[in-house]
Structures are given as C-alpha cells and as structure tokens.
C-alpha cells in the first residue's frame, strides 16, 4: 500500500552538494575524535538537528512521514499540512515512504525519526514496547470508534490517535456479472453462493474471484467461519476447526480454478486483477475505489458485503494511527498537528480525497450520506476483526502469508498448526 513513483516534488532540496566532500572530511576528523554520537540518549538528545539532510528541522519544522496508497492520498495529506501550517505558523514537511516500517525502524534506531507518521497496527505494539512512540492519545478529544482505540492500546495505555479505517468487502464487475446472466439478486450471501457465482464468472481469460495470498484477505473467511488469530483474551487461537474449515474452503476454490491469486493472473494486487478484467470479483478495502478511478476509470462495479460463512458475517478492518515520536524535538506542535488532522472536517476531507472512513463516530452519518455506494464498507465495521496489537505480530502474519502463498498445494491443518506455534511465542 505504498507508492514511490510519484509524489510531489520534494520541498526541500539539498543545497550543499559541493560542500559534501569537505564536510565528509570534517566529519571524519570529528568522528576520529569520538565526537557526536547519533544514538540518542532518551528523549532530549541532539536529535537530527545538526545532521546532514535533516539539518533544517531545528527551528520547529515538523517532519511527517506517511506510506501513501497513491497520488490522491499524498495530495490530500499535503493539502491538510499546508492548511495547518497556515493556521499554526509551523512548517510541516511531508515525505512519502516507499517502505514505511523500514524507514521508521531505521529512524528510531538512529535517534532521528520523523515527528509525525503513520503507524500500522501490525507494527504498533513493537514500537510501543521499545518506547519509540509518545503516548499522547489521551490529550486528544474525539469520539474514536472503540474498536480502533483497542487497536492502539498497549498495556492499557492508549498511545496514538486512529487516523481512519477501512474494511474489506466484495467488489463485483457489473459487466462480467451481466454477461454471466446474473442479476442483483444473485449477490452471494453464503459460501455456497459465492462458489457458484465464481464458477459462473470464470471464463477463458477471466477468473471468478481474486484476492491476495495473505491473511489480510483470506482472514475474512476465517472470520466468517467463526475463527480468527486470537481468542477474547488475546491468546493465540489459530489452530481451530473453524480456521481449518475456512482455509479448506479457500483451497477448494483455488483448486477449482474459480479463484486465483493476483500474481497468477499477471497482476500485482487484487485491485489490479479486478480492474484489468482478469478477475470478475475481488476482496478489497475502501482504497480500491480510488485506485479503480485512477487506473481503470472505465470499469463498472458494485461493492457488496462479503458473504456469510458458517458462523455468520465476518470481515477484517485495517487502520493506522498518527504516531508521534518519543524522540521528537517538537512534541507539542506534533500533537497539535494530530489534533487538527483527526478533526471532523479533516476526516471528511480525507474521506473525499482518498476514500477512507473517518475514525470518529461523530461524522459517521455524514459519511454514509455522502458515499452511499460504499455502504458495504461501513457496514463491515459492525462485525470486523482487527489486527491483534501484539508485539511481533507482523512477523507471525508475514510467516502466515508466506505459507498461504502455497495454500493451493498445502495442507491447511499443517499451516495453522505452524502459525499457532509462532503466534503462541508472542501471544501466549
């Protein structure tokens, strides 16, 4: 969910190319004398003030780092920052990370992190545990969805303000739907129906359903079967009959050829498979709307809720929070900025800009009114499962995903047993 190809031109340019060599030698001399460690000793260290490219930040400019889903998101955030800067008089620089977790981790380790940044749930616990994040969220007054607050609470402390959220739903290609002789009454509401329509939609050169080989998509089936990653107490609970049933179902569809991973149809992700016509249905989140509008404007589609499984409805929700670095030189301004960014007005602006759902309940009705065609997504909020906020969860999910790539020829029970083992290690 990140992009590198196009972002607004960097506002700061490096001004000292020629001085670099001279500086190098000066720094070498300095280094040899053992001066100037980059490792920050706790909160108030030297920070990135006098170091290289970060050199201009000393005067209170905020560095903001995001992982962007595309031009639209980058644009919206840029505008928001500009508006805030005009209002507050504090400069804010936006950078778009190509690889957000890596850039954040490296920044934390180097003691020169950005001031404000996106934090995904899967990395949240790790950053909170090692003290990288400033727990400021209690200073923000907003009625966040309780499930989102839950996601950013570590050891009973609510750390950072949820930015917005998305859920997964079923996206259907209207043209393909009609060509297969299906009508609005045929939108699948059960697994059996899903299999049936997927089969009907599968033609030469078009697969019925496509979704990424990852828990972040296949987990919806686990939820519908009544399973999940953890139980109510937050303990690992992967190796369950419900989850086996879900994976077995997915495996059957893959084997039947009515469902396929995007890479098998020459696409990078579900939205691309769907937009390019290689798949007639996909399971994706709100972001797919913007992507389709940009990349495949001619595709006619409908978003419907995911079908019910044996245990009823189920989907997954994803969210980011606005993290503030514990090492930030300018925490007050950073928190001020976040307060602005999670305000009702900004949340709606982001929703319009790149199709996310506001993290506060106060604008829920406004949002539903404005985006009736996306009703399926907000409906999902009722029953969605989130990423468990457990330290080390991202490695476990990463491992799960790696095994899911081989699901077509793998053994669901074996996969779940091994994931259970890994998850137990971090969530006993």
């Amino acid at each position, binding site marked *: 969910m990140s992009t590198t190809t196009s972002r607004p031109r960097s506002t700061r340019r490096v001004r000292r190319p020629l001085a670099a060599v001279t500086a190098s030698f000066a*720094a070498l001399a300095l280094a040899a004398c053992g001066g100037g460690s980059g490792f920050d000793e706790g909160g108030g260290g030297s920070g990135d003030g006098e170091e290289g490219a970060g050199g201009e930040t000393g005067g209170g400019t905020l560095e903001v780092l995001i992982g962007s889903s595309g031009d639209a998101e980058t644009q919206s955030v840029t505008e928001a920052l500009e508006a805030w800067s005009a209002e507050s008089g504090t400069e804010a620089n936006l950078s778009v990370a190509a690889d957000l977790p890596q850039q954040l981790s490296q920044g934390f380790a180097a003691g020169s992190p950005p001031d404000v940044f996106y934090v995904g749930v899967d990395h949240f616990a790790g950053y909170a545990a090692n003290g990288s994040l400033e727990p400021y969220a209690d200073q923000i007054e907003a009625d966040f969805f309780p499930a989102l607050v839950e996601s950013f609470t570590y050891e009973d402390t609510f750390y950072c303000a949820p930015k917005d959220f998305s859920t997964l739903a079923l996206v259907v290609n209207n043209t393909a739907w009609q060509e297969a002789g299906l009508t609005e009454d045929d939108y699948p509401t059960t697994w059996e129906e899903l299999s049936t329509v997927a089969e009907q939609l599968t033609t030469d050169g078009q697969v019925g359903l496509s979704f990424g080989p990852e828990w972040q998509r296949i987990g919806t089936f686990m939820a519908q079967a009544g399973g999940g990653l953890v139980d109510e107490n937050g303990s690992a609970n992967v190796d369950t009959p419900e989850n086996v049933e879900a994976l077995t179902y997915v495996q059957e569809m893959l084997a039947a050829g009515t469902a396929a991973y995007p890479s098998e149809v020459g696409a990078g992700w579900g939205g691309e498979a769907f937009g390019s016509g290689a798949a007639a249905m996909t399971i994706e989140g709100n972001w797919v709307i913007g992507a389709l509008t940009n990349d495949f404007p001619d595709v006619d589609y409908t978003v419907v809720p995911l079908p019910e499984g044996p245990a009823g409805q189920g989907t997954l929700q994803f969210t980011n929070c606005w993290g503030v670095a514990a090492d930030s030189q300018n925490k007050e301004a950073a928190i001020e900025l976040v307060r602005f960014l999670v305000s009702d007005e900004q949340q709606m602006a982001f929703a319009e800009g790149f199709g996310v759902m506001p993290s506060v309940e106060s604008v829920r009705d406004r949002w539903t009114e404005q985006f009736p065609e996306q009703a399926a997504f907000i409906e999902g909020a009722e029953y969605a499962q989130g990423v468990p906020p457990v330290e080390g969860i991202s490695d476990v999910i990463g491992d799960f995903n790696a095994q899911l790539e081989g699901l077509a020829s793998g053994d669901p029970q074996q996969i779940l047993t091994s994931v259970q083992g890994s998850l137990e290690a971090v969530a006993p």
Partner: protein
Amino acid sequence: MTAVAEAPARAGDAGGRAAGRRSPTTRRLVTTSFVYALLAALAVVYIFPFLISISTSFKSNADAAANPLSLVPATFTTEAYERLFLNSDFPLWFQNSVIVTLAVTVGRVLFDSLAGYALARLPFRGRGVVFAGLVAVMAVPSVVLLIPKFLVINTLGIYDSYSGLIIPLLADAAGIFIMKNFFESVPASVEEAARIDGAGTFRVFWSVVLPMARPALVTIVILSFQGSWNELSHFIVASQSQELFNLTKGVAQLSSGALSQGTQYPLKLGAAVIMTIPVAVLFFVFQRRIMNASAGAVKG
C-alpha cells in the same frame, strides 16, 4: 597479475599454422561454423535482456504486457521517461548518485595511491603488520557488515548525511593492492633521482610518482566508479531521508514497494536503462582496460 599488466596476446600465427597442419580444411570449417553459431546464440541470450529493456521503456503499459517479446514498440511513447523526469524524484536520485560516485572516486584515488605507495616504497616500522591486516580485512564479506556499518555510522554521527554515504565507501582495501602492485612494478630510479635533487617525499609522490601511475589510477577510477554507482546495501543502511536517495536505492524501492501502483514495467525498465547508461559509457570508453582491470581486481 594486476590490472595494468596486460598479458601479451599469444602469437596468432602459431595457432593458425598448427591448425592448418593438423586437419582437412572442411573439418575445420565445420568446427568453426559450429563455434560461431554457438557463440552467436549465447551472445543473443546475453544481449537480448538489454535490448528488450530499452524497447519496453518506450512502450505503453498495455503494450508492454501484451507484447513482452517485441523489440519494436507498437505505439512509441516517452511517457515512462516523462513521468520519471518530470513527476518523480528520479532526477534527485540521479544527482545524488553522481555526487556520491564522484566523491568516492576522487577519495579512493587519493587514499589508495597514498597507501599503496607507502606499502610499496616507504620502509616504515610495522609495514608488515599493516599489510597482513589489510589482507585479513579484505576477507570480510561486505554483506555481513550491513548492520554493523549502520551502528558505526550512527555512532559517529554521520548517519543520514552525505558524509555517511561517502566516507564509509572510501575504505577500499582492494584498491590499495592494485596500487601497491603497480608501484612495485615500476623502477624506483626516477623517484630516487628526484629525491637526490632534494624533493620531499610528498613532493616526489605528487609530482613524479602519481603522473607515472596513470594507468593504475585509471583502473582505480573505473573500479570505484562502477562500485559506488552500483552499490545498494550501504546506501540503504546509511540514510533514510528522501533527499539522500540515490539511483540504486530509489529504483530498488520502486521495483519492490509499488504494490498499489500496478506493474508499470515501462517505467521501471526506463529507470533501469537510465541508471545503466553512465556505467555503459564508461565501459565502452575504457573497454579494454576494464577487461584487464576486472580480471586483476578480482584476482587482487
């Protein structure tokens, strides 16, 4: 052995004579055509990826996906390049690569030649130990140093700066060997004459030795340029700001990170083509020397 020592090509006539004496002409013809055919086929395999990259970079996304094999774009477009140069940080990456590469090259030429000269010509106590140390240090695989380098760069306070990108790359044991070997291969008489005239060691080095060492210096320039232009892992661990991205780091992230952006092969291949050009130019200009340099350097 070294970059500069060009092995004299073995007299071609001897081989020709021998072959003529050996066997009937027809048989030789068959063998020769077979060898040519084999070589030509291999050459196609080696060159084709580069040709296809160039042609694909001028295709549209759809064309690239539909006709991955065709060497002529169905619709010729410079869209990929426009996007790279006008609507991305690519020019910045390029600029950074140039800055770092030039600085590293200049630095290495200077330090390698100084150190190589000292090891070859200046008797000082501890020279043997230093030399042994260099040999040991050269054996450390660079990838193993990824994490450690970050720690050092950060401790020294040069993380995320041009200094951090450049200075660690100046450490180059192999270059010292090339220079040392070269200096050992030239007679000392000229320098001695200069020294008798009363010139100091550094003066001798600067105005007598260095000009003489041009062939070896060119080798160092080539290796340093190529090495730092193509370097990736060091830049990953030494910086984080977007302003310090260079070509390899930028293109690598473009290649692996752009999930929601679709495949975009013309764009990626365009970036790959552009980043190959400087090295390719260097390669074709100094072709003969590079061939020898590389053989020498690897053997080092």
